[in-house]
């Protein structure tokens, strides 16, 4: 399992801004989730929430290794990916609140947020559904000779869907600039990976497709970042895909309301101790680059941003009912398609 560089090396390896941004985005993801859960209880948000609390390092570490030109496909547990890739919490919160200025005009909700201008091709309600899409985007980049990559996020559970296999195989054949980023959080809904997957490390599946599979500590943002960077370089050099398995854990239920009959409090607690944000802040402080105050300030800015996001969402208009019919097609042939 790959881990990030020693604390002492931070200074030499990373610009302070990048480290700050890593911390800020992880915190933003965490606080976004907690706030969304609160607002769901409060009634602002009508739909499901699959929170990624505990998995901030994978979402942010992988996304920050990409440029604005690169694209991602995301999942049902996508808020972290979207924020990682630069998504604006304001439009996300408005979308969760089903408001007109939300990312999808209130039509998609949490499961379907997309922002093509940021290279976010979409969250997805279908497990494994976004994998072929990422392969296709990478194909487009390759055909046009653009130095861009597509990164597909998906879970351990998704690696058992046929789409994973078909997408990985074709990407391997065509050496497409795509990164298969698996967030292995040990569970697919209530099913532990050992009850549905007969191997210990998913990364070995890459061997079936002729490209490297690497394992990283998914709670170590620098390890995630480094592994993704390497994969991006490989992809942009025309060497093809990489499979990254990031071992992590979700602190909360599969969705809000999940009684979690399938795991123990001990297990949860043991992973809470490996909290990626606490771990990173500790390391940042040990490095001497940041002190308590610096991190508190970043945290404060995040809370402010979320307060604004929530009040934006609250005040935003609901979509007009007549609009429900809009946006199904580019061209409705004078309404004939309805």
């Amino acid at each position: 399992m790959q881990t990030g560089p020693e604390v002492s090396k931070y200074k030499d390896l990373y610009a302070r801004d990048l480290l700050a941004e890593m911390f800020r985005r992880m915190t933003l993801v965490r606080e976004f989730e907690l706030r969304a859960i609160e607002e769901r209880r409060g009634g602002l948000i009508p739909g499901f929430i699959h929170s990624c609390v505990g998995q901030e390092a994978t979402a942010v570490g992988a996304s920050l290794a990409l440029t604005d030109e690169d694209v991602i496909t995301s999942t049902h547990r996508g808020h972290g990916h979207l924020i990682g890739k630069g998504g604006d919490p304001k439009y996300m919160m408005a979308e969760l609140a089903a408001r007109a200025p939300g990312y999808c005009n209130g039509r998609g909700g949490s499961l379907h947020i997309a922002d093509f201008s940021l290279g976010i091709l979409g969250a997805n309600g279908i497990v494994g559904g976004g994998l072929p899409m990422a392969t296709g985007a990478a194909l487009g980049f390759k055909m046009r000779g653009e130095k861009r990559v597509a990164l597909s996020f998906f879970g351990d559970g998704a690696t058992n869907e046929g789409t994973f296999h078909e997408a990985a195989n074709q990407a391997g054949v065509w050496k497409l600039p795509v990164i298969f980023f698996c967030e292995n959080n040990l569970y697919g809904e209530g099913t532990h990976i050992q009850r549905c997957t007969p191997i210990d490390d998913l990364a070995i599946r890459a061997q079936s497709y002729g490209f490297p599979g690497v394992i990283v500590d998914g709670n170590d943002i620098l390890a995630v970042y480094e592994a993704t960077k390497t994969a991006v370089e490989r992809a942009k050099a025309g060497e093809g895909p990489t499979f990254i398995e990031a071992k992590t854990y979700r602190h909360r239920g599969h969705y809000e309301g999940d009684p979690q009959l399938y795991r123990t409090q001990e297990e949860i607690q043991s992973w809470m101790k490996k909290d990626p944000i606490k771990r990173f802040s500790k390391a940042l402080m040990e490095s001497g680059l940041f002190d308590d105050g610096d991190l508190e300030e970043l945290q404060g800015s995040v809370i402010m941003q979320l307060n604004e996001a929530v009040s934006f969402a609250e005040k935003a208009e609901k979509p007009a009912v007549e609009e429900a019919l809009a946006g199904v097609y580019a061209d409705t042939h004078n309404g004939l398609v309805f």
Partner: protein
Amino acid sequence: MRELTYSDAIREAMMEEMRSNPNVFLMGEDVGVFNGVWGVSHDMLAEFGPERIRDTAISEMNIIGSGLGAALVGMRPIVEIMFGDFLMCAGDQIANQVAKARFMSGGKANVPLTIRITSGAPGSAAAQHSQSPESWFMNIPGLKIVTPASPADAKGLLKTALRGEDPVLFFEHKMLYAETGPVPEEADFSVPFGQAAVVREGKDVTLIGVGIMVKKSLLAAEMLAKQGIEAEVIDPRTLVPLDKDTLIKSVAKTGRVVISHEAHRRSGPGAEISAVLAEDAIEYLDGPIMRVGAKNVPLPYSPELENHVLPNENDVYEAALKLCGRS
């Protein structure tokens, strides 16, 4: 009669068959430890153990396809597709393997496979978790398609499915799971396929409802009654086989018909029902065959938009009113 929820009625049918026949088992995503995402199979794992209540990998093709394989060697699998929306993940296994195995083999394959599927919009679940896929496989010969609308029918129709030798797509509407109703206790209680239920008698207009729209058609009938219009409400119960006779008989009496379902209007189950009536009962009709269904738009997340897209009792009521020349 004792009352059961729709959900528990389904569970009871499964448990009875599992108790009486060791070849019956349940398999699907999170049906065991998790109790089923909709809770239908709660605590079945405790009684039957992990050999017969099988949590699978997230692999819909294999769930359906191995249900078929097990059936071909004499098992009687019940497999669950957590959301009907995911049915097409296994589309080919259903359309090309399950449906055709018997015919292609010259009638020799026995396929006692019941595929339990949730359908319908549970509210703000958006476009990939809200669909009503009842008609998606109606064009494929070889399947039976069942849409229970009450706890008693849920139990009785499932018993027929589990005791039969043919593959059945059994659609359970998510918003019916909590509905309660009387369910006969006799061990041999079952509801035959191909027998529509006349759930309310009337002479002025026929309201044919599929699944949850039976309930909404009944509500519409009450509203119509206040306008002095006596609506007959019919639940086909099984779309394949379809009990044409009962439908035609009713239309012959009322001369007017509104067909409703939660599936999208275009090519939903109502298209076939309408076409059957337009072919075999047109002489009795005093007006157009009206269809009420979800608008032809993916299900939106926003509650307001979703409400606008989904059909409800008012839509049925208004269509009927119009038919009766009252709007």
